[in-house]
């Protein structure tokens, strides 16, 4: 294992320290509570937005703290959801008197730890609502199971609901748009390699040079199925077929198309994949009008990519375009 790190046990803390040092006008690292918060308090009365999850998926969520997205993020250990204490502290930090939305990816650990935190917070009189992100179509949506994972939709929900909160929407409205975005988003991921967690020091699994994992998540675990390596056109077709079959977009729908790298895939390959997807979607009579291409929800040093598609409506589009200033997503003018 070759990584830029000192003690592997401190990899997450060292990352958080570096993040805050690099972006002092955007975020602060609250080391006592192990959370990342905005450098400047948003104006009083804004609905707060927080999220958390296992580290290793950077820039998710810490890179999305700032104007127009999150108020605080709770980074857990690598691939381990945060503990209730962090979530409680982040909720307190994010509350401006108008309540806080918890953006929770549907992983057992995350759901349970947010659940415990919410029980603890019940004593504090902070209005709390939550949105459960479960956009992964690689898993059948079956009762009696843990359900579908929350993947790329998380970024879109954080951006769009974050913009709603920033413009002054109340908690119910912010929650509502967050749920609408999740409901209209689907993701399918493909892994070309296994990642290597710092503490483990070796890849999680062996993957021969002519095989790939399809239907992957974001914690380095194997995917739904191992198949032979194929060219990007076939991979794009698989991704699109899986996503569209489940999303069932309106003919001619305006789409936000996200091609997300898993951490070790170069940007140029992501654009090759984007090009294939864009073309296939247009052939299918759909209309990609917004894109996001890059490494936004990763699994450490895994090679691979995921396709996320959101069927946009006008409100979502306006909120997507709204100004944002975080360490990893920035655009538009701030007032």
């Amino acid at each position, binding site marked *: 294992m070759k990584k830029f790190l000192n003690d592997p046990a401190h990899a997450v803390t060292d990352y958080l320290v570096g993040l805050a040092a690099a972006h002092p006008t955007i975020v602060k690292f609250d080391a006592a509570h192990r959370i990342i918060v905005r450098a400047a308090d948003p104006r009083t009365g804004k609905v707060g937005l927080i999220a958390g999850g296992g580290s290793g998926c950077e820039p998710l969520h810490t890179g999305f703290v700032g104007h127009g997205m999150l108020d605080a993020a709770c980074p857990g250990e690598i691939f381990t959801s945060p503990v209730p204490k962090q979530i409680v502290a982040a909720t307190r930090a994010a509350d401006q008197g108008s309540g806080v939305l918890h953006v929770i990816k549907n992983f057992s650990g995350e759901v349970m730890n947010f659940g415990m935190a919410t029980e603890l917070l019940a004593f504090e009189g902070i209005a709390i609502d939550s949105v459960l992100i479960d956009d992964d179509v690689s898993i059948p949506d079956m009762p009696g199971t843990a359900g579908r994972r929350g993947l790329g939709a998380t970024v879109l929900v954080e951006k769009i609901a974050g913009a709603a909160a920033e413009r002054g929407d109340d908690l119910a409205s912010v929650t509502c748009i967050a749920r609408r975005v999740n409901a209209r988003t689907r993701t399918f991921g493909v892994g070309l390699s296994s990642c290597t967690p710092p503490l483990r020091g070796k890849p999680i699994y062996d993957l021969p040079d002519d095989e790939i994992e399809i239907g992957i998540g974001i914690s380095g*675990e194997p995917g*739904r199925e191992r198949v032979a390596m194929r060219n990007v056109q076939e991979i794009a077709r698989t991704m699109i077929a899986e996503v569209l079959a489940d999303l069932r977009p309106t003919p001619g729908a305006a789409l936000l198309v996200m091609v997300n790298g898993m951490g070790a895939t170069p940007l140029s390959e992501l654009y090759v994949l984007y090009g294939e997807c864009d073309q296939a979607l247009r052939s299918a009579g759909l209309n990609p009008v917004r894109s996001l291409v890059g490494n936004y929800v990763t699994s450490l040093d895994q090679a691979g990519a995921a396709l996320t598609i959101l069927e946009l409506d006008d409100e979502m589009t306006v909120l997507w375009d709204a100004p944002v200033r975080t360490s990893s997503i920035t655009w538009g003018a701030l007032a």
Partner: protein
Amino acid sequence: MNGRVDTAQLAAWMCECSRLIDVHIDTLNDLDATGGDADHGSNLERGFTAATASGFSEKMTSPRELLKHVGSTIVDIVGGSSGAVYGTFFLRMALASGELKWVDGATFAQMLRAGGQGIIDRGGAQVGDKTLYDSLAPAIAALDNALVAGETLASALQMAAEAAEAGRDSTVALAARKGRASYLGDRTIGYADAGATSMALVLRAAATTLI
């Protein structure tokens, strides 16, 4: 009165859990790698080490205080599924011990059952979902049955540990329906669940310390 478990014994139990997890850390990580993210051993190691490393405070004079300390340390330190599940397990055991200074076998069995219920409440697992509950549920039943049948606590715990190990082995044939491994469905068949394996160690530790 069928046996007696006091605070010092519970402390010994926790230290033995910590030791066994340490010994099996790679196995647990590797089992978790087959369906999860290869960190179950490291997660528990972090939790039990934090709960036991600095020894237990003199103020922990009751099973309730000791187990509450262990449970809340695990909740505060571990994170992930196992942090919530194991943390809830020990917190509910603490609660079920009431204010007693020591507990008899029957009470201990009730505490174990309360811990199991906590796991169900927290994460909705059922027997057959391929989680640590698959080791715990048969152990709870075995302990009850053995005590009812008049066994000593020592031999009842022995039977509980064996039942947990059988439960662990039963997960090999299962496809996961809860936790991270559930995303892999049938691909998890053929390997024991990591959590079921660690829970069997916890019960084995009970059998060697609570006597």
